[in-house]
């Protein structure tokens, strides 16, 4: 309790300081925005039963992120009556997005890789949203060319793998690596299933392949004689991009999955990122969403208790079935006696949105080589008109330089001005003029952005236990496998099917 108050006091204090003493050189507006840390932290207290009379309900879904909303949609379409309870004022979870006069922009997940035809749940959902079908996807929503470039040694290179300045040996190594990944793409395990599939559940359980989950990606690369720093950077970048943790942290199975699970390199994207998909789900679930409510307790018998954000009024439902679509670190505090339930560790992230007065890149994804950030994407990239006006850049940084708990603490303590300085210094290499074009900068801190696929997690007993239902409670969240849209989609369908069965 004390800790919470002091943090709040500290945050309030630093904001007030910022407001009173605007730095002389700062010509933009903005601040630290983000998830309701304080309201959410009420959960640090043990869940206490309320005596509120329970309303009768059919299916209650706890958590309005991608998995919860997809479960809700499928259940509703099957004729069930659903209620989605969400802590924040807007549903969205990791696919949260914002909008200002310039553009909509993402706060988290911002693309969906083109699914292969065998990913039937993903394909069906995208088709329902008017994005075409596997034989003919709608071109407008596919990321327009040019889609990625790399800032390396003072210049922009097309694509993410530096190709110049490599000697023959390095070139051979890079080729050997990608040939190996191509092999993994085609590979099937002894059980006939694809070695690395999406959803992850469809992957082979061949022990030889599962063994790759026991060592880190970095160790695997060393073992396979992949030593070139450019290649190792590329793999580290990939792991940080998808998992929020570098290749020295995640398992080789997860690292290879990044390269070997997808057939196409094309992606769907929208100005608001995956917030576009959330908006489609929200339209279809109108009248079934209960935002601004903190769920405080879920019982295996189907009772769900919550308090409203403003009034702190208690409410309760007695449901036929519950979908717990909250991340597991929260879920385990909601269910009495389950505090020690298996749960992954989570990577913290910082995401910033920068509004700038003129366009600075024709490319969608702009990656910085020598940086702790992943670079930025351009929200207005999919615009069909001429790119001449202002734009919004979404800047991503996994906070993996420290163990997650320390990184979280450091991030929460850092002032807005300090974040601005870090971000602008990082971007000053490729864009020395950026400061003078910046009109607004918001920072969002994700304390628990995504589950970390450390060795032993994906193919260990704990994750297997995570997907088991508990009485009337079914679980659906991408932290039960990998933090990808497709995995959230899988778990949403999985929970809906289990309830409908």
């Amino acid at each position, binding site marked *: 309790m004390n800790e919470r108050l002091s943090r709040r006091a500290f945050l309030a204090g630093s904001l007030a300081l910022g407001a009173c003493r605007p730095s002389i050189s700062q010509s933009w507006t903005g601040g630290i925005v983000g998830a309701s840390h304080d309201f959410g932290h009420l959960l640090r207290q043990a869940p206490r039963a309320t005596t509120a009379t329970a309303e009768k309900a059919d299916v209650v879904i706890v958590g309005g992120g991608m998995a919860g909303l997809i479960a809700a949609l499928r259940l509703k379409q099957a004729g069930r009556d659903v209620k989605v309870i969400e802590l924040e004022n807007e549903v969205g979870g990791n696919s949260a997005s914002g909008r200002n006069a310039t553009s909509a922009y993402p706060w988290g997940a911002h693309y969906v890789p083109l699914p292969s035809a065998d990913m039937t749940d993903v394909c069906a959902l995208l088709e329902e949203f008017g994005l075409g079908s596997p034989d003919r996807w709608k071109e407008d929503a596919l990321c*327009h*060319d040019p889609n990625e470039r790399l800032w390396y040694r003072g210049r922009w290179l097309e694509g993410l793998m530096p190709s110049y300045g490599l000697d023959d040996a390095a070139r051979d190594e890079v080729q050997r690596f990608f040939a190996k990944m191509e092999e993994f793409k085609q590979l099937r395990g002894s059980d006939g299933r694809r070695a690395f599939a999406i959803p992850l559940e469809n992957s082979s359980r061949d022990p030889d392949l599962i063994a790759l989950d026991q060592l880190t990606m970095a160790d695997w690369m060393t073992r396979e004689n992949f030593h070139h720093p450019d290649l190792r950077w590329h793999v580290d970048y990939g792991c940080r991009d998808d998992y929020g943790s570098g290749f020295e942290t995640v398992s080789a199975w997860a690292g290879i999955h990044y390269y070997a699970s997808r057939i196409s390199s094309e992606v769907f994207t929208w100005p608001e990122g995956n917030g576009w998909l959330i908006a489609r789900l929200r339209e279809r679930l109108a009248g079934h969403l209960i935002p601004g409510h903190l769920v405080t307790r879920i019982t295996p018998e189907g009772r769900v208790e919550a308090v409203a954000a403003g009034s702190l009024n208690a409410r309760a439902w007695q449901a036929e079935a519950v979908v717990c679509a909250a991340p597991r670190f929260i879920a385990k505090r909601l269910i009495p006696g389950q505090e020690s339930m298996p749960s992954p560790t989570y990577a913290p992230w910082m995401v910033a949105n920068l509004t700038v007065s003129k366009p600075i890149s024709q490319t969608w994804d702009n990656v910085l080589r020598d940086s702790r950030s992943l670079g930025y994407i351009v929200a207005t990239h999919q615009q069909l*008109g001429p790119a001449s006006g202002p734009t919004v850049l979404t800047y991503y940084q996994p906070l993996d330089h420290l163990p997650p708990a320390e990184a979280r603490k450091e991030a929460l303590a850092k002032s807005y001005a300090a974040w601005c300085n870090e971000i602008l210094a990082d971007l000053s290499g490729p864009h020395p003029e950026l400061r003078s074009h910046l009109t607004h900068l918001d920072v969002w801190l994700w304390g628990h952005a995504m589950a970390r696929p450390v060795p032993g997690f994906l193919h260990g007993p704990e994750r297997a236990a995570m997907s088991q239902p508990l009485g009337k409670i079914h679980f659906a969240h991408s932290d039960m496998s990998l933090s990808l849209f497709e995995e959230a989609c899988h778990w949403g369908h999985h929970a809906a099917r289990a309830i409908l069965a």
Partner: protein
Amino acid sequence: MESRGMRLLLLASVFTIATCGLIYELIAGTLASYLLGDSVTQFSTVIGVYLFAMGVGSWISKFVKKDVLATFVRVEFLISLIGGFSAFILFSLFDQVASFRVLLYSMVFLTGSLVGLEIPLLLRLLKDELRFEDLVSRVLSLDYIGALAASLLFPLVLVPKLGLVRSAFLFGLLNAGVGLLALHFLRDQLRRQRGLWFGGLLSFSLLITGFIQADRLQAWAERAAYNENVIFAHSSPYQRLVLTRHRDDLRLYLNGNLQFSSRDEYRYHESLVHPVLVRSSTPKHVLILGGGDGLAAREVLRHPTVETITLVDLDSEMTRLFAQHPLLTPLNQGSLNSPKLHIENADAFTWLEEAIGRSLRFDAVIIDFPDPSNFSIGKLYSTSFYEKLRRVLRPEAVISIQCTSPLAARKSFWCIEETLRATGYGTLPYHVYVPSFGEWGFILASPSPAFLSGVTPGPLPAGLRYLTDETHLAAFQFPPDMAQLPAGVNRLNNQVLVRHFEEEWGRYE
């Protein structure tokens, strides 16, 4: 006393001269990289030629038998003029001379030889003042220190603060200053000084003027790059419009690219407009995308069946200019003020989406976009664009599209054709010769694939200067050097057209 003064002066000159010499070399290398690209090649060839020329200059110095001091002063003034004006001259003549490289290397060679001449002359001037070992050690060390100063100053101060043109003038002034100081302090050793003084002061004042007026000169150089008199220049939010006139020839440039020449634009616009309209039985509602100059509209208005023309052009400055400017309205015969025509200033892609919502339908569409030279314009040649376009077309509609040169950019041309076919259009490509552009390509397309091959063209309107039944039919024949080849389908997510275009037109730059 006097000789000590002279020694110091001459040694200071070595330093200045060395700095100036390297600066001219760096300016030439940088300019060549800016204008010609490929900085590695430009810098190494410029440095190579420069150093070689210095060798030549040093060798020539032995032919200076007498009046060493006067020659040295003359060389200073010459360098100050050539070096000082080098950036300005190279900028302004870039587009004007047949071979820019010949000019570039001649200037580099000239500057290099004169700089190469300086040091041997100085050594000879100083040879009686110092012992040989002192002389060589001082002159050469100052020379190299000067080079270091130049190489630090150039990227850190000169380019960012002064720019290339003004930096060149500044160092020209330093060279001229060295000459004038030598002239002043060593006047006792010189006969017939008047000519030298005159030359020196003239150089100095020319350079001072250049230095002060550098911004204006740069603008003038831009004008000179168009090789004609600029009669109108304007930067709209989207592009730079420049209108030039040379005798009776009016030319429009958008961002430096020629859009038309009044001498032969009729060939282009007759070919863009009439083949499509004579294939549409009674065209009533015509859409023009791009074409803010009103020249395509002028041709459309020759068809009496046309009731409405909708002209969609991004740039309102452009359409206003061509609706009002007294030099331009005779060119488009006031087409933009025709009661049949109305203008919508919008981006074509955005406008199409809106037009679909308004349920607009057209009998004929004329697409006159700029060439696909960047990703923004490339989108207007994509499957996505043609799919949207289809939704504002009547089933028997025909469209025509300007498609860059099938000779200079063969893959680009056929890429557009392939893109149209991939979107379900029937196509009929053709080409004409437009002298100011070269061999130019167009494509007729219809949303019903079989329609175009079955239709018999109606009669051409009277009064055309280029198109006749014969030239019209001949336009559909493609010789082998422009024949169809597979070039891929241009989609928003691959933009192959822009890549072809860059590669193909890149060869002509």
